[in-house]
């Protein structure tokens, strides 16, 4: 028995109190019968305009308010009809046609037409907001988009600049930027030729299962079932998403029955509610890859031996089993689970001796480097764990913690030494990650290719770049898969990127909530199937 019994009473009272917390207490708040109440961190929402929205939480909203040309079967990465009921590509490999489903209406009552679909794509390209690259990578520009995206009757035609794997195009069209907006309603609210940009910041013009009732940035939004939905019956009348920043608070709300779903519980909280019969936890891959990027302009980080040694200095399994438990799984390649060509192998593990001998052989003296991380609990903890293991091989890491935009600014400006970053796919096609991790046409500072991770960390991908460009044109799925597998293996072993984890979404909810699809790494959340 430890010699510290005297400390017990104080702790005991608190501990006893904690245990009581799991027992049903008198004052249980209940959520309204017909409403799904979700506690989530939604302060990342910058925009709710499909042409601009690019963050996770905004995607959930847009996915339920708008329909896109092509949809994913909820919970999978399988393509299914959206606004377009069928699609095809011509022999030339660049002319894509889409047949628009008849009989669907927008929330305004206007029918959904090919004209609306064409307008939506033209609008997104012309506004040229951040996610526009998903469309512009096919050669669409604000100047040519009116000619290349056309409609006739219920047929939409998109002409791209060069042949690529057709599934690549279709995958891109499931992205939220391809959501179809109500052309007439939007143009009614146009100010100074802004294509309804101001108006769509706080209003919606979709045909999805729900209409947007209220949106209070950083506080909440409420969706209301729009009526007959062409994909099936909407089960719950309302969805109420509350911004709750603290995971601990989300857990309290969930335990007290004040919310149906909590999106952001920490591993500790998930473990804490494990014994609670009234609650359950669903898991889905979140799609985010956590990686280290070593700036190749900085000595000795550009020494292959150093990079190699560092791969052996990360305690992948140790972290995943302890403070990251359940929410991060080791992943040592850049494609997340479920993507074409995704690799599950994890050849690297913590091996300090091996790392030391690699450094010794290469004649690398002990050195100090700066590790930049975002001021976020998980990342700071990963940073501290790295600090610990790196130190054992003589690499001193100084942690530099900053706000998201600050850390990002440093990375984009190529000012970092080592930075801990995460990357989520933009559309369910392997090219989304391959194109940024392995493509860097001009490694000079002046090039300013800030959108490319390879450029940001000054990495010259060499042959990998051609391999990626070839892979995106390959139309045979099996060949394409093998190409991505090879690209990832080379990248894993030679690039200055050290992929470490893939994030897993743990969604905690009341036991009576069913068919809530969080979307995972590929898609956004689907509310309309949920019941309770």
């Amino acid at each position: 028995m430890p010699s510290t019994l005297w400390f017990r009473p104080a702790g005991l009272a608190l501990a006893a109190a904690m245990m009581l917390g799991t027992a049903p207490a008198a004052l249980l708040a209940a959520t309204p019968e017909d409403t799904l109440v979700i506690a989530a961190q939604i302060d990342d929402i910058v925009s709710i305009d499909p042409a601009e929205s690019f963050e996770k939480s905004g995607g959930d909203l847009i996915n339920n308010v708008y329909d896109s040309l092509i949809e994913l079967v909820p919970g999978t990465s399988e393509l299914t009809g959206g606004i377009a009921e069928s699609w095809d590509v011509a022999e030339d490999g660049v002319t894509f046609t889409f047949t628009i489903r008849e009989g669907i209406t927008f929330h305004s009552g206007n029918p959904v037409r090919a004209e609306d679909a064409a307008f939506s794509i033209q609008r997104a390209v012309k506004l040229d907001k951040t996610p526009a690259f998903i469309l512009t990578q096919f050669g669409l520009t604000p100047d040519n988009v009116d000619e290349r995206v056309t409609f006739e009757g219920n047929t939409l035609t998109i002409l791209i600049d060069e042949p690529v794997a057709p599934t690549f195009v279709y995958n891109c069209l499931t992205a939220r930027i391809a959501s179809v907006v109500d052309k007439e309603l939007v143009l009614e609210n146009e100010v100074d030729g802004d294509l309804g940009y101001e108006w769509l910041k706080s209003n919606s013009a979709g045909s999805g299962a729900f209409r947007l009732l209220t949106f209070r940035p950083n506080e909440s939004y409420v969706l209301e079932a729009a009526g007959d939905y062409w994909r099936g019956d909407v089960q719950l009348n309302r969805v109420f998403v509350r911004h709750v920043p603290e995971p601990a608070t989300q857990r309290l709300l969930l335990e007290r029955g004040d919310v149906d779903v909590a999106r952001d519980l920490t591993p500790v909280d998930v473990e804490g509610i494990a014994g609670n019969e009234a609650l359950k936890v669903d898991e889905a891959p979140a799609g985010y890859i956590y990686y280290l990027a070593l700036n190749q302009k900085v000595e000795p980080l550009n020494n292959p031996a150093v990079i190699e040694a560092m791969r052996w200095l990360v305690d992948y399994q140790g972290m995943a089993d302890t403070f990251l438990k359940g929410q991060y799984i080791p992943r040592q390649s850049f494609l997340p689970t479920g993507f074409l060509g995704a690799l599950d192998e994890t050849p690297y593990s913590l091996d300090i001796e091996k790392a030391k001998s690699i450094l010794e052989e290469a004649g690398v003296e002990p050195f100090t480097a700066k590790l930049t991380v975002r001021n976020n609990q998980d990342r700071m903890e990963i940073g501290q764990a790295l600090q610990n293991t790196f130190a054992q091989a003589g690499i001193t890491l100084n942690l530099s913690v900053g706000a998201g935009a600050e850390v990002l600014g440093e990375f984009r400006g190529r000012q970092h030494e080592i930075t801990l970053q995460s990357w989520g796919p933009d559309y369910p096609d392997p090219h989304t990650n391959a194109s940024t991790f392995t493509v860097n046409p001009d490694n000079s500072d002046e090039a300013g290719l800030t959108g490319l991770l390879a450029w940001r960390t000054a990495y010259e991908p060499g042959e990998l770049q051609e391999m990626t460009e070839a892979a995106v044109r390959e139309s045979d799925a099996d060949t394409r898969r093998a190409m991505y597998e090879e690209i990832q293996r080379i990248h894993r072993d030679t690039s200055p990127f050290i992929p470490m984890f893939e994030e897993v979404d743990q969604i905690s909810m009341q036991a009576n909530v069913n068919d809530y699809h969080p979307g995972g790494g590929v898609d956004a959340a689907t509310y309309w199937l949920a019941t309770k």
Partner: protein
Amino acid sequence: MTAMMTWLRDPNPQSRTQARLGQMWLGWLRMRRNPLAMIGLMIVLALLLMAAWAPLLATHDPLTQNLSQRLLPPGSAGHWLGTDEFGRDIWSRIVYGSRVTLYIVGLVALTAPAFGLLIGTVSGYFGGWVDQVLMRITDIFLAFPRLILALALVAALGPGVENAVLAIALTAWPPYARVARAETLTVRSADYIAAVQLQGAGSGRIIWGYVMPMCLPSVIIRVTLDMAGVILTAAGLGFLGLGVQPPMAEWGQMISSGRKFLFDQWWVATVPGLAIFTVSLGFNLLGDGLRDVLDPRSASR
């Protein structure tokens, strides 16, 4: 000893020194009768000793991680206050954290009053438009939401212990300036200042050599009373991740990282919280006792 005490308690002191020492002795007696102030004194002394003897008191290295020993409850073998999410010994981190706390408190206690003293004495000594301008600036800083200003400053300067100190100091100086100015106004017209002026001393020398020393005592009293506030502000900055950077142990930051374990591993956040509470209570009790002793207006009533 008795002779010494009689000398100290002599109601008719023979010299300034005797009078002053006698006053201090009386103050000490008065404070010794205040049990709360004595508790405060003991807490502060304990903090000083803890910081000085940290390597002896700590049972583990505060930085060494051991993921297999993480989140052990208090009373576990070898970790009587338990371990944190990296398996680091909480007691050792608390012990080393006291150094950081003292460091911050010490630096703020040196910088903010110094700046306030400068502004206050210059303002009070010159009067006129200098006074107007400086006091207007002081007013602006007083009208500022201090906490928000400190947050914004650290956000601007970047997180880190020196920047946290700077931010706290920059928001804490105006009251000292006020106190110093008030003192200066009473000193300014004194004959001996006039005498020094007649000897041709420059304003700088007069302020530095004659005015500032007169203002020091009242400023120092204010500083003692403000200590606990500084500790809490520093902890708050640490809590928001704007203070000391990991892996160094700082109490506010320890609470912040223990926050997510609050429900299941309560000790990770509770223990540093108690440490902050105890230490700032100690400073508050001591400061309160000192105020009773040093401020004749509130004394013995």
